[in-house]
């Protein structure tokens, strides 16, 4: 009987805990999902929409691996942000493609890994913001959720006292996620587009 009671208590706690986790994840999902960018995968790109003339790449369709990070729509056009991986380079690079009807074109690509990875250089600021927000959400997911991401961020901030730069769209995205940035961040503003 005692054994049965113990089993019942364990089951009770397991079930209760699971429901709590489910509820929490649903609530946080709703909160995060209240912003427009999409993280879910989308139909693959036709080869003509892939990065063109990338040095060393003869056949982009077979040599490049694409993973969609986020997408958004603006003024009748769809914008998608991909992580692109080349065969000999494990670090993916960001690539943004603009799609309108049946046509598409790459508008931003940073295979060099330049650290000033500012989307607003190549696209309207609202698009840059939404794509960056989607990228941030993906990073939050990868970090294990918002609390874990926030912890990591706070640790970084505590360790670093210097001034650094962040793009306007990036600062905006952090604000949308309720992530505070320290005062020593200089905002690189988008010029009028």
């Amino acid at each position, binding site marked *: 009987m005692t054994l049965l009671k113990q089993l019942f208590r364990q089951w009770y706690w397991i079930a209760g805990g699971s429901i709590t986790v489910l509820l929490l994840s649903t609530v946080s999902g709703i909160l995060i999902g209240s912003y427009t960018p999409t993280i879910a995968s989308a139909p693959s790109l036709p080869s003509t929409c892939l990065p063109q003339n990338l040095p060393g790449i003869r056949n982009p369709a077979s040599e490049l691996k694409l993973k969609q990070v986020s997408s958004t729509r603006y003024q009748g056009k769809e914008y998608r942000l991909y992580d692109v991986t080349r065969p000999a380079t494990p670090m993916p690079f960001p690539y943004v493609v603009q799609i309108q009807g049946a046509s598409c074109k790459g508008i931003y690509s940073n295979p*060099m890994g330049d650290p000033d990875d500012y989307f607003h250089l190549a696209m309207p600021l609202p698009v840059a913001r939404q794509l960056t927000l989607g990228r941030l959400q993906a990073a939050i997911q990868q970090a294990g959720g918002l609390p874990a991401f926030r912890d990591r961020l706070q640790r970084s901030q505590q360790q670093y006292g210097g001034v650094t730069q962040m793009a306007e769209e990036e600062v905006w995205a952090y604000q949308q996620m309720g992530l505070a*940035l320290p005062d020593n961040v200089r905002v690189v503003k988008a010029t009028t587009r």
Partner: protein
Amino acid sequence: MLPPWSRFLIALLSSLLLFLEIITVPQTVYAAETHIPSATYYGAAVPDWGQVTFTSLPELTQGGFLQVPNSVVGQLGYDPSRSWSAGAALESVLLLGDVADSFGLQKFSMGAIASLTGLNLETLSLSNLPLLKEQTIASLVQAVPGLGNLPLAQVRPLYDLVTSSLSQTGREILSVANQTLSQIATHDILGSLSVNQLGDTLSQYSFTSIPGLEQTALGNLPGWQHTFIEEVPGLAHIPFASFPNSPVSGYFGFIAIHDVTYGGDRFHKESTRKPTQFSISGSYQVGFNYNCAQERGCDYLELNSPISLGVAGDPSRLHGARWIRGGDGPGEQMVQGGHGVLGQLNGGMEPTGRHPFGEVFKVVLTDTDESTGTGQFGLYFRVCSHGIIDLGCTPYFIGPVPWLSSKEKGLVFVGLTEGTAPHGIEQPPIPSEIQDQINQQGGGTDPSGTSGDSNLCGDGPAGVDWRALSDAITSIESAGSGVYSAVGQVHCDSQGCMIPLGRYQFMSFRNDLRAIVAKKPGGREFLSRLDAGYRPPASEMLRYFPASDQDALFKQAMTQDIQYYQRRGKQGDELLACLGENWYSGNCTHSSRRDYIGGPTVAEYGQRTVTGYRRSLQQRGKSTCNISSGQQGNGKATGTYTKPVTGGVITSPYGWRTHPITGNGSFHSGVDYGADRGTQVKAADGGVVVDVLNTCTEGNYACGGGYGNVVVIDHGNGRTTLYGHLQTNSIPWKKGQKVSKGQLIGRVGSTGRSTGPHLHFETSVNGKTVDPRQYGL
């Protein structure tokens, strides 16, 4: 005749004396190898400029002083007088002004220094840069871009400086807080407030507390000339290869075998008993074949050449050559050095030596040890001032800084050699890799330097075909060889000396030629030597007056001439004849006068020009220019890389970095060289072009996959280099063409994902990028 027993006794005593001397004389111990970061060049140890920094160099081994007369101080605008003791670090002896022309360190901003060294400017205080203490509000506003637009209240250190001053006079602080710094700067009293007045509190302000200061070139700040290198945080830790005027991009010259060491200890004095011959050491003033004039001779290294070219002799002029020990001690030689007003300092003398790595420093043989067969080299530096008033340069006398050493039968890098080769010495065979080096030297940076073919194409004014005109003139000039490396004979008269140079035999006195040469590092000294009657070897001439410059000057001069004679009604063959006559005599007269004894008449020269032009057209047809077709190079890789942009500063290094706040990682796959738009980009090594894109325009951030216009060169053995963001249509190459090391491959632009003109340069091995710094870049 001595009896046998006495001869035995003498022999015994001699042996005993010799033994005693051996055990009583301290054994000469060769100094431990100085740890200069080094690489190898055709087997010879050479400095690894990607690793050599001021802090990596050993300390000076001798003290010294520089006392500049007041009259010179007045002209300089600062007093470079100083003294130093043995053991001083070079960065504590050299001022920014000393090396302004050679290294251009004043072009660095603290931001650039921070990006190259990892220096954290946020934790650096304003007091760490003593130069700032000399600044006033007015000078800062003038020096720091954008600072004048900011309200005083936004720049805390200056706000505190002003308000502390105002409180003493009782003025209203609020009234000035909202004024811009430009307004403050124009105020007689406030504008002249010195940063130094902040006193000890200066250390409380972060370097970033003055917006824009980190992007300000040091040379914008008054007083930079008399700032010691060590007084600029991080500067002494930057590799020489990253200096704005890096004088050390790659290596240019010959290697020699260190054959025999002479002098340096008590037992070996044969070198000091007769004058030295076949010298390859000296100075810019006396030349580099300056034998030891001391009666007792000098210590030296006898060299051997691994190079021979049969009937051409020994182009390196190293077989049997001697590198004499420099200095003012026994067995050492001092020579005339320096020029201009500053050249009088140190008695106008400097230790004999060579400049294998250019003008910035002199390499001097500072010690020889015959018993161990070793030679030790040292570096000597000088002070130059080429401002509005050119005061010249002091002799090279700040030193020595211990440098590389050599051992008998080892290899020594000697740089370019000039003058007459020693005669009557048997020539060894040429190793194939050395032959390659000779070929490379002969062609300089342009592979066509030793060929007779023209690089020109297309039509000039009046439909004149450039290639045919070039062929016509060069069929008469440069002994008909048409080679870009041709060097004529020196002619001297009471006005000075002149020498014809290159494919078109431009005279060295031409102002347009001199303007081109003077812009090159060391160009002014090169011209001075030409004026003094110096006849340079072809490789040296091509270094200062390469084929591309020769062609450009030819087109420029001929364009003016064609337009001039067109305006005077000349056309057809008469126009061509006039072009030839003018080239020869400076006028079109069809006269029977000869420009020099044995030369053609003016009219003959004109007719030969017409004949040569027609023959070229008949044989080769009209030339056309194809932007996608460069003059092919030899495609040969040397295994070493040269910096692809002259003077470019690394603005973004290779490798991983993590954003300090977000923790986001990025991997920069190459190095970025900041350079002006249109700056020439040159092949880091010879090879085959495997990828070209030339059509990207600026503002398309995905063109070329983000690289913009790009060239990729395959150097063999899995090695490739990539040059990105080049200017639209600036690449004169097609896929599959061969390029030579140093050949023009495009121009700096801002195509692809780029926010300003720069070169993105990648080095890869087997498809994977590697840090270009490992190649000394």
